[in-house]
């Protein structure tokens, strides 16, 4: 947008007028609402060697985020109010963006006994998820959906039928057959998506399907939305850009969950973004220290960091730089669509308040100003996250956050985390 945004205190005072207040030089920059992430593994408490809230949220600020969802992959698991409060306190004291904790659905994220959702809800949790542990029991999942209706909370279940993926190391297909790695078939994801949609529909409950990765999974959500099921879903940049051919050298940077699939799945995910089936693009920021990743493929943990690269990867790969902001041109998305999928889309899907809001008077001043033209190469060692396992290492990307503003204060100023 062009014109001035006047920020006073924590809110936007006015838009489009001259002001004597705080001035940010915005020549050539795009101003939009701060980005919102639905899945960040901040690892604290418990795995401070991978990431802490201070470094994870610094990475978020550097990537243009003003809000992230902290996954319950803490140790112990975030499955009770005490740990939710601990995370919120750490976020208040050390965080550089708002942190919205995601509570576990089940105790210990083990898939058997419901965690105390009520207490966690009271502490501020709006979404429950066992992260990359799927709730496989239909009974537990059904109860979780029904129980969460008490507060109209959201259940985000990792879609994976683990009876089909035991020991799986990558997408099942020609590449897994060639590499001799046990494959994770698409149907493992699709069966759980289909089941969860049926359960949510009958329960009248809110379901969020994280990180879709297959064509059929997108179709299942599309059909369910058409029937009025209360479902939202997201996709990661790596699943939108990288396919399983990248695994040819067993480089563990490409080991992610769900696994990288095929060009046809990528095409389907992009169609899902275009027609509104997919609500959000999520970093699924999953830091692992180098010592953990630097192993034989089957011993390495799955995950890639993403908070600092998501915006740039999406702009480089999905948005036509020459098209005007509301047009797709030759890209998958228009600039406006891409920014909505990174900000208002995720905020709406998961009830994240005060973020992803339109830039108008009276709204909280949660802003991102980024340079859409700058081309840069992703270098893991230059990232601010504590772990540098990026699936986009060496990838040429476009656009970069210059200023991030959280309630009227810089968290990123002129490219530097404040």
């Amino acid at each position, binding site marked *: 947008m062009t014109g001035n945004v006047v920020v006073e205190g924590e809110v936007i005072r006015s838009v489009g007028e001259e002001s004597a207040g705080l001035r940010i030089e915005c020549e050539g920059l795009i101003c939009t609402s701060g980005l919102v992430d639905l899945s960040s593994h901040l690892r604290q408490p418990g795995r401070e060697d991978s990431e802490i809230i201070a470094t994870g949220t610094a990475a978020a600020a550097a990537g243009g985020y003003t809000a992230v969802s902290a996954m319950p992959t803490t140790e112990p698991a975030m499955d009770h109010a005490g740990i939710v409060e601990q995370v919120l306190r750490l976020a208040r004291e050390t965080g550089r963006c708002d942190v919205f904790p995601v509570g576990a659905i089940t105790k210990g994220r083990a898939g058997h006994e419901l965690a105390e959702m009520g207490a966690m809800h009271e502490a501020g949790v709006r979404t429950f998820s066992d992260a990359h542990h799927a709730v496989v029991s239909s009974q537990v999942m059904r109860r979780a959906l029904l129980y969460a209706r008490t507060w109209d909370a959201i259940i985000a279940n990792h879609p994976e039928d683990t009876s089909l993926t035991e020991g799986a190391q990558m997408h*099942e297909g*020609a590449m*897994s057959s060639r*590499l*001799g*790695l046990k494959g994770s078939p698409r149907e493992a994801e699709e069966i759980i998506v289909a089941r969860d949609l049926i359960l949510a529909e009958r329960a009248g409950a809110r379901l969020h399907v994280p990180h879709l990765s297959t064509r059929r999974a997108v179709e299942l959500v599309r059909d369910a939305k058409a029937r009025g099921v209360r479902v939202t879903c997201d996709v990661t940049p790596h699943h939108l850009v990288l396919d399983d051919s990248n695994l040819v050298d067993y480089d563990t940077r490409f080991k992610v969950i769900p696994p990288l699939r095929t060009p046809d799945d990528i095409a389907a995910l992009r169609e899902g973004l275009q027609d509104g089936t997919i609500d959000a693009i999520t970093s699924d920021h999953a830091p692992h220290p180098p010592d953990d990743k*630097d*192993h*034989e493929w089957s*011993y390495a943990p799955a995950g890639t960091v993403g908070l600092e690269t998501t915006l740039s990867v999406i702009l480089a790969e999905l948005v036509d730089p020459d098209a005007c902001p509301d047009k797709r041109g030759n890209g998958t998305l228009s600039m406006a669509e891409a920014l909505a999928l990174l900000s208002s889309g995720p905020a709406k899907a998961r009830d994240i308040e005060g973020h992803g809001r339109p830039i108008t008077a009276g709204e909280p001043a949660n802003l991102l100003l980024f340079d859409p033209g700058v081309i840069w190469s992703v270098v893991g060692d230059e990232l601010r996250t504590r772990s540098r396992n990026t699936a986009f290492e060496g990838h040429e990307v476009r656009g970069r956050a210059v200023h991030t503003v959280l309630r009227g204060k810089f968290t990123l100023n002129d490219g530097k985390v404040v």
Partner: protein
Amino acid sequence: MDDLLSIEDLDAGMITRILDTAEGLKDIAVRPIKKVPVLRGRTVCNLFYEDSTRTRISFEVAEKRLSADVINFSAKGSSVSKGESLKDTALTLQAMGVDAIVIRHSSSGAPRRLTEWVDAKVLNAGDGWHQHPTQALLDLFTIRERMGRLEGLNVAICGDVVHSRVARSLVQGLRIMGAEVTLVGPPTLMPAQVDSWDVTVSHDLDGMLADLDVCYLLRVQNERMAEQFFPSVREYARIWGMDIDRLEVMPEHAIVMHPGPMNRGVEISADVADAEQAVIVDQVTNGVAVRMACLYLMLGGEQAGAVSEVTPA
């Protein structure tokens, strides 16, 4: 030749060169002094993360016949959780100035990872379900020895293809050399998207026997039954096992192969294993010569002179 990680890295010319070199080296086994000095002063480490006495001994014999200094490193059961990581071990070997590492590992791609951590030449002695290139080469050698050629032959590979590094490497080797390959067995044991393999797939062993030059039987592990890839060993043997009746349907010149160790009475009956047409012992013998050839070509033995000129140490 650089590292030997996968048959995919080789072309027909290179495979022929390895087989020809092995032919020259095979004679050494029948000499009174079974040793040549071509790798004298070179150090080879056998790094075995997975038990395989047969393969390790075959490599060790090959290395010693070439006069290399041999280190055996057995890291049984090693993994991230227990003990030293592969990377740490690799860096140790690197610091010791090892010239070549022969690695066996239960994790597919481990040899490929190893090349990123060491300068030594890496020879894959079997990784997970992925590759076992010297096994494929010794199989090609044995087939060529018996048949006089590889091109145009009809080869069936029967059994647990999906979990088999032997099948994976052999299919590629046979296709590179112009042989026709049919994979036989239950669909549960065929790899995903097998159509990308450039082979024919059949579930009917009996229907193809009469046209075969080579029937290659893969080891069927008992755990596959436990995992319900097929209902019972008896049923497997009845439908896909090689027995004397089936052997008799095959052409007279045809051979039966098996990478060992055999499950007699499952994929191969005892009488077939001991039959004239079974070349299983030849495979073992040829394994040493083929491994000698690979090490010789990898470690610059060529500069030391042609094999034919090599005199006993």
